[in-house]
């Protein structure tokens, strides 16, 4: 049994339609929903007694708001029976704006869901069309208002920015309108063209142009400063919260390498030094579970060196950074160099990224370990 308090993730693998930038696992076949519901509960039973307790539950997807309140009731009731879910647990539901209504929100609250993560993506109709979303800016703003009114402990907003050709002013307008309602939490994701998505195939034909990188870089720094001016904490590369207690407790577990159990197709789990993940097929998942098998696609056991690398690259994504003790022999000159360049800072035996540094969290682990070369670069490039 894992004695640490863990997080519970449920992957809802259904969407009305695939968005052109999305590489999450989801399918538009809602007919499979009932079978999926059964399978998730059955899969949960396999893990009964394997985790001490859960203090976060996260319904992610896919589009979890496709689940009706009674679906969610059924799930939560089963999960509560199988596992110990602490009374004050953070229970998040991801919702698409078109699924939000006052009545539904009220019912969700009744089920104990206390955190809503709203997939607004933008409040700019042009951007929403580009992103292939089914809702308008008006709907999105309305949904946000309703969610906030309903009185959840935390309402979070997902935004995508750095779209090809997006001007800073347009993006700032979106930010202002979102900030006007003061959600507790905001995630701002730079648009990434992911392999295998529609965008990768059609829009940019592979490699994004170099200047786009500079545009995105400027927007990223702008966004970080903008939310800080609004009094938000920039606590992870893409995440902001009004206060540290409004940080997403569930997502923090990923970056802090706390244990989590993922249920549903393609869900990932982590416990002690093991990682495993489920098959990325709803049918296969249901078939395996209903015939009494684990729907696991792959498992891995981490070597100490791998654990260390994970701690490093995950930790660097958060404002808390990583413990300096992690580096047995961090070359002093490397550290100074990165500090001089304004990418990292150290305080109280911890090393963490500045907002500039957040822009390089994929490369920093290798720069810091000395695997990749570093050099003084004149500022202002």
């Amino acid at each position, binding site marked *: 049994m894992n004695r640490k308090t863990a997080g519970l993730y449920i992957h809802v693998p259904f969407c009305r339609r695939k968005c052109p930038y999305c590489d999450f696992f989801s399918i538009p076949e809602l007919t499979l929903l009932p079978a999926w519901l059964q399978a998730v509960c059955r899969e949960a039973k396999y893990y009964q007694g394997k985790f001490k307790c859960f203090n976060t539950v996260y319904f992610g997807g896919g589009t979890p708001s496709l689940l009706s309140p009674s679906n969610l009731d059924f799930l939560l009731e089963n999960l509560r029976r199988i596992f110990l879910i602490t009374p004050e647990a953070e229970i998040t539901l991801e919702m698409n704006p078109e699924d939000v209504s006052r009545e539904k929100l009220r019912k969700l609250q009744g089920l104990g869901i206390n955190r809503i993560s709203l997939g607004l993506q933008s409040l700019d109709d042009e951007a929403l069309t580009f992103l292939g979303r089914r809702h308008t800016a008006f709907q999105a703003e309305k949904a946000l208002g309703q969610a906030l009114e309903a009185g959840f402990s935390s309402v979070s907003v997902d935004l995508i920015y750095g779209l090809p050709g997006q001007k800073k002013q347009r993006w700032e307008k979106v930010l202002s309108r979102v900030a006007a309602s003061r959600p507790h939490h905001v995630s701002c994701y730079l648009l*990434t063209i992911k392999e295998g998505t529609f965008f990768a195939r059609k829009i940019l034909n592979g490699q994004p142009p170099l200047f786009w990188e500079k545009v995105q870089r400027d927007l990223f720094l702008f966004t970080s400063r903008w939310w800080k001016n609004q009094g938000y904490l920039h606590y992870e590369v893409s995440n902001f919260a009004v206060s540290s207690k409004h940080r997403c407790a569930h997502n923090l577990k990923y970056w802090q390498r706390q244990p*989590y159990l993922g249920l549903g197709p393609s869900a990932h789990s982590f416990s002690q030094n093991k990682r495993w993940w489920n098959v990325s097929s709803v049918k296969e998942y249901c078939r395996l579970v209903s015939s009494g098998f684990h729907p696991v696609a792959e498992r891995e056991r981490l070597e100490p060196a791998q654990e260390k690398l994970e701690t490093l690259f995950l930790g660097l994504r958060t404002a808390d950074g990583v413990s300096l003790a992690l580096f047995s022999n961090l070359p002093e000159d490397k550290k100074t160099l990165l500090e001089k360049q304004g990418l990292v800072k150290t305080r109280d035996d911890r090393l963490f990224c500045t907002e500039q540094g*957040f822009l390089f969290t994929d*490369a920093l682990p290798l720069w810091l370990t000395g695997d990749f070369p570093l050099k003084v670069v004149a500022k202002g490039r």
Partner: protein
Amino acid sequence: MASEHIRNFSIIAHIDHGKSTLADRLIQQVGLVSARDFREQLLDTMEIERERGITIKSQTVNLPYRTADGHLLELNLIDTPGHVDFSYEVSRALACCEGVLLVIDASQGVQAQTLACLYRAMEHDLAIIPVINKIDLPTANIERTKEQIEQELALESGRALLCSAKETIGINEIFQAIIQRIPPPSGSPDKPLTALIFDAQHDPFRGVIVSVRVFDGEVRAGDEIMLMSTGKVHLVEEVGIFRLKRESRPVLSSGSVGYIIAGLKEVSETRIGDTITQAHQPAPVPLPGFREMKPVVFCSLYPVSSEDYPALADALAKYVLNDAAFVYQKESSAALGQGFRCGFLGLLHLEVVQERLQREYNQSIILTVPSVRYRFLLQDGSSVLVDNPSHYPDPAKIKQVEEPYVRLTVFTPERYLGAVIKLCLERRAVELKHNFLRPGQREIFCQLPLAEVIFDFHDRLKSITQGYGSFDYELSDSRLAEVVKLDVLVNGERVDALSIIVHRQNAYRRAVKICEKLKQEIPRHQFPVVIQAAIGSRVIARSHIPAFRKDVTAKCYGGDVTRKRKLLEKQKEGKKKMKMVGSVMIPQKAFVAAMKIEE
């Protein structure tokens, strides 16, 4: 077997005229291979030969042939390569034979290498049996091929055999001719042993296995033999013949072709061309051996990671046994560390060495840009030979430079004459003449710098003549050249391994290409990378790889951890395959790409 029952012959021809296919038919005819085990060009056993559809190494096979009147003969067939770069393989094969099958493709007629290998066979005084192959082709022109045999080869066309190796036509007649027209070997089993080492290979279990032609005497397991060049004595463990696999025999006697295993664990002891004799009764003089091949193309070879240097050294020592035309010596480079300077017979040869080292010896290597050998006359009257850009003399001291020229012969159908002449002139041809060879066919002669031939001349000629053109060349003389040394600098540091010696006229074009290629191959860094190509201190081309402006994954949640970690691990691993120049990581493929610049 008594030597009157032995025949030793090679199959020689221009490239692709069907040598290996004919060998297949001869092998099948004597029943050496079951239908199940047969595959086309059976003797082309190396992966790289099969991929490219050409023979690279000569292969020997012993054919047991029963005559109509019941005698059993042993026919040693040696299939040889047709490409110019492997002509050393042909020469060594011929030294083991009394006769040849000179194969001529009936649809192509006599080609450049047909002549070249005929001359070689004549030098060895061998019986020559012309074989007109591919008579099944609709484009076959037997009459015209016969005329060419008379006129261009000065052979009796009446003695030429007609055959289709593909359709198994005329194979029996070939056997008859081999038996009747090729003399049996002349040596005597009673004389002291002389066996010529014409090839070798290293076997991890058995040590060195040498291929020999026994001229006089006998050798059997248990004998003490001596290598005449070193005087070293070894105990014979096994002798035998090649029957697609090694087949051990009690004895190899005069006239035979086969192998000897003699506990030769030290690879360096074995020398191709050496004579083996009996230790207790040595022959008075060794066999003449082989004419040394002079390499014409040079480049350096480095292990991708420096710790692999000893492994590479070991691999080369073993490899060279099996490729007598390859030469190498130690050298070191500031950018790449310890390595070797190597000599080759041509660019294809170079590619083959590279690939075989990678495939058969599992070596990860970096090659530098190939060069020919230049002669520098210095102000003080002395002269130096330079085939390595890093030995380029101080330009202030150079009086003049000479580069090797070749006498080039091109055969081409008349309709491509203009294009071929243009190609030759682009490659700085001089003294260009052309001859009417036969209706529709032209022959072009010119003098051309070797440097221009070794880089993709073959490919370019094939492409402009749609495969119909062929060429042959031999070194002629040296002529004045206007060359410069082009250096490549990465963030101000010279990468010695990327320097090249080029003709002044080509320097700018090469410089631009090199900068472009490197820009594509060098990954982005935390800092900008500037690539420059310079002659002395004068930069003539540059390119720029901007620094990362950002390198971050926007979303990293539970499902992304493993993927992200694996990516970092892969990058770490990849770093090991990169060479550090200053603080810039240069991947192996950047060196390879720089080398392929001519394409």
